[in-house]
């Protein structure tokens, strides 16, 4: 294994979770973004999908990604 590959494997193994997403009632998803060094946070967001029987409580997840692109 090359030095670069070994470093990559070490980086991967030491990578800490900084984002957690979990399903919540009604099929929506609650996601928490942990802060990186020097940032505040954590930040929280809700995403959802269209359903005939209930309002969406947040945008679809792909829209959140497009919002990140816009920012």
């Amino acid at each position, binding site marked *: 294994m090359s030095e670069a590959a070994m470093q990559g494997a070490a980086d991967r193994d030491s990578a800490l979770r900084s984002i*957690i997403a979990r399903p919540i009632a009604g099929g929506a998803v609650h996601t928490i973004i942990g802060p990186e060094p020097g940032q505040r946070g954590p930040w929280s967001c809700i995403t959802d999908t269209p359903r005939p029987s209930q309002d969406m409580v947040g945008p679809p997840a792909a829209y959140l990604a497009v919002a990140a692109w816009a920012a």
Partner: protein
Amino acid sequence: MGVAYRGQIPLQDIRVDFQVEAVTGPDARGFGVRKTVTLHGPLSDTQQLRLRRAAEYCPVGQLFTKGAMALEDQVTGSAEGTAPAAVARMSRVLQPALHTPKSLPAGAVHGRYLAETKEYADNGVLQHEGEVKVYLTCENLTRTGPWTLLAGHSSEGWVPPPVPLAYAALAASTVTTLQQCVSPDAWPVAGFHVEMAPYGGGSRDQAQASAAAGTINTRRAVRRVVLHGAPSAGLVQGIEAALQHDPLSTSFRAGGVLLGEHIVGG
């Protein structure tokens, strides 16, 4: 805005508008976007081209257009006394019913730069590019959104930076896809969650330098699906199969989301 500052380009304001469309095709991407960037300021053609390239190669834009993500998937069980490897072996006996994820509703995303949030150091050097107010709306079966959020860079750090927000969207999309694709009967009673662990992404300055130079800066992350309890037989295999159907995973790995792009002067 950061690239314009570093390149001494007189960009006074910028607006970004995306139209989101459902797209059918052989892959799992399932959607595409048309982007319009409106630049305000006395810009030459060359400066507009530089900003267009920067927009194309911005850290999040690279994910959508260039597939600049190396994503490693892990599925682990959290059942006490049950090693993940043993869980995986045990679970490859039967595969739960796999469904196709629902198509993405059409809609729009509008980004409006908040110029007053730009921050300078005492010596006049730009420290933080500031924040963006983003409006989102999509077709809904009950009523139309819309939603508003803030993102960007500021010393106060009240809003999430763009790249972590994109990772959060990927984690959320993964949960939604797993809910839609894997039969509810297959999940452990206590449920599951998804974790993202990015690594080796480089600094914001490095990312902006890549954007200015038009080079790809591959983002790397571990994505873990954590099962709360012992999974039913075949669940791990079913999850691995379902992950291949996630629209954002496919987009970030393969790019190709951009259906059209317009750069206009304001």
